[in-house]
């Protein structure tokens, strides 16, 4: 292969590998000794709420959380302030101040590299932003229309308001004055993925009195926002450009020989490709399934496990380990699978709560192997019925 003359044609564009990409920042933070606290602090700043449950934290990738933060805070200073505000709200401020420093110092190199390549970045951001803006404005209006036409308009607005302002507003007059389209846009910026929205809504609902009613209201919201989270697909012309860029990459030499603009095009398309990949699976976007009709859930349970073992495990989950005595059997015969499922939903408020209880009880009962299989099957089929 021909050696490549470094001085030719690259102009201000250094090779892509010279960027400290977000992945590198995320990787080094994940390998840090305080990685758990780092994730908690990044998560807390991102979601505006403190989360201690490792099961919930595990559902969110540090990389995605960082990306959200960097998109939200365009300068290092803005990020610094936001992280600082989160730390100030904590009990163990001293420890977390050190954690914040680690995050900031890692992010610093990323922001620095961005300003170095401001030309390319500007092009990239311009292209992508224009496309996104075009797609979004129409969607905000459509969502606002859905909200206005819903019989649950007031509750929907309350939830949106709570996400945007971090405060519960009950005054119908205040809520009536809200510019719905602007509010939806604000929520979209704060909550860039369906997963984030699901999490935020779950957190809010946990604090409310009418949880069941608000669960179905949240469902309406999740469905309405689906259009925003699914649409981030590039148009055809850009897809073609991606193809071209990929072909170019395969020839090894061409991308580096291309002039600045060519490089920027590839960058823009790369970023769009990332957005495209972010289109989330349907189960994340859809709300929880209807708990008032459990025939489909019961059918799923029968498909994947033994109905009696399922009942024993659910009974244990709600009322303590099953005794396998005559009186234990008698009491199990007084309840239907349907009733036990309803009791389980009432008792285990979140999915991680259910999952951990099932796992623990599977080990407490006879024939742990069989019960572990049953616990896994039950958790899997009950998951779509949980918002969180």
């Amino acid at each position, binding site marked *: 292969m021909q050696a490549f003359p470094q001085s030719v044609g690259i102009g201000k564009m250094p090779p892509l590998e010279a960027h400290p990409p977000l992945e590198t920042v995320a990787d080094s933070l994940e390998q840090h000794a305080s990685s758990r606290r780092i994730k908690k602090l990044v998560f807390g700043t991102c979601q505006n709420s403190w989360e201690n449950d490792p099961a919930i934290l595990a559902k969110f990738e540090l990389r995605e959380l960082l990306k959200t933060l960097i998109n939200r805070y365009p300068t290092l200073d803005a990020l610094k302030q936001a992280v600082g505000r989160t730390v100030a709200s904590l009990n163990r401020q001293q420890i977390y101040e050190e954690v914040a420093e680690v995050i900031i110092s890692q992010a610093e190199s990323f922001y620095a590299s961005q300003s170095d390549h401001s030309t390319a970045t500007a092009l990239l951001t311009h292209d992508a932003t224009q496309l996104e803006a075009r797609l979004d404005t129409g969607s905000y209006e459509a969502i606002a229309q859905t909200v206005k036409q819903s019989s649950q308009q007031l509750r929907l607005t309350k939830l949106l308001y709570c996400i945007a302002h971090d405060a519960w507003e009950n005054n119908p007059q205040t809520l009536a004055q809200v510019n719905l389209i602007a509010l939806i846009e604000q929520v979209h910026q704060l909550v860039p993925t369906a997963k984030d929205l699901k999490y935020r809504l779950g957190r809010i609902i946990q604090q409310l009195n009418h949880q069941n009613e608000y669960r179905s209201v949240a469902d309406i919201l999740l469905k309405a926002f689906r259009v925003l989270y699914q649409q981030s697909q590039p148009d055809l012309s850009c897809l073609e450009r991606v193809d071209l860029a990929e072909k170019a990459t395969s020839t090894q030499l061409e991308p580096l020989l291309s002039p600045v603009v060519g490089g920027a095009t590839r960058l823009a398309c790369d970023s769009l490709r990332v957005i495209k990949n972010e289109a989330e699976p349907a189960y994340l976007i859809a709300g929880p399934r209807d708990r008032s009709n459990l*025939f489909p859930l*019961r*059918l799923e349970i*029968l498909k994947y496990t033994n109905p009696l*073992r399922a009942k024993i495990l659910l009974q244990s989950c709600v009322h303590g380990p099953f005794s396998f005595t005559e009186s234990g059997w008698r009491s199990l015969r007084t309840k*239907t*699978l349907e009733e036990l499922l309803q009791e389980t939903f009432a008792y285990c408020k979140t999915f991680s709560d259910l999952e951990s209880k099932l796992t623990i009880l599977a080990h407490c009962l006879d024939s742990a192997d069989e019960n572990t299989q049953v616990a896994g099957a039950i958790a899997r089929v009950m998951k779509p019925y949980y918002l969180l």
Partner: protein
Amino acid sequence: MTAQNLLQRYSAGEVDFRGVSLVSAQLEKVDLIGANFANADLENANLMLAYLSRASFCQANLMRARLAGANLNQANLLQANLSDADLHGASLQGASLYGADLSLANLLDANLIDADLREANLSGANLTGACLRGANLRQENRGGGAYLRGANLRQADLQGANLRGADLAKADLRGANLSEAFLRDADLSKAKLQGANLAQASLSDALLIGADLTKANLTAAKMQRSQLMQANLTQAILTEANLVEAKLSRAVLTEANLVKARLSRTDLSRANFCGADLSYTTLVDAYLARAKLVEANLTAALMTRAELSSADLTGANLTGTTMPDGSTHP
């Protein structure tokens, strides 16, 4: 034969245990997949949580056997005697139970998906919460349909089940799922169907005399010529139901939703429709002698040639209703 003896022979590869006697044997959680127990005597045997899929119990005696949680998927239970057996939470998916005696058996939350239950005797059986989707309970050529008189089917899942001509008189079907079920000619007299889902079910020529259908969902149900005398349909949903030539005399339909229902040539004498929604219904040639339509909504209903002379229409909404003489009410 002892239980130990049986298990030794099975693990040595033997599967033919036809006609053996294992009365009251302790066989809890055993694995006897595919074994042949045709004509065997297993009365009162304990087979809880046993693995018995594809085993044969053809004409075997399993009276009072304890089979809770047993896996009997695709087992052959042809004409087996399972009376008073405990099958709580057992799995019988695709099992053949043709002509089996299941009287007084406990099938609570059992899996009977795709099971063949033709000619089976289920009188007094407990089928609460059982899943019978795709199960075959249909009437054979000459004999009656499945015998489920007085059976307990509360919360049972019978979606799409074939119950043609089945005897379900006085059965408890509260909260059951009977959507798309085939119940033509079935006897559901005095059955408890409160809150049951019968959407799109086929109930033509069915007997529903004195049945309690309070809050039942009968959306788009096919109920031509069905007999609903004295049935309770309070707050039931009957939108787009087909009740042509059905008999509803003395039936209670207070606050029922009958929007777009077809009620031509129906006998509605002495029926109570107080507060019911009958908008856009077709009531051509309907017989409404002494029917109570107090505060009923009859907006845009078609009542051509209907017998209305003795009906009580106090406070009824007749906007755009086509009256018996063909005129349109203002």
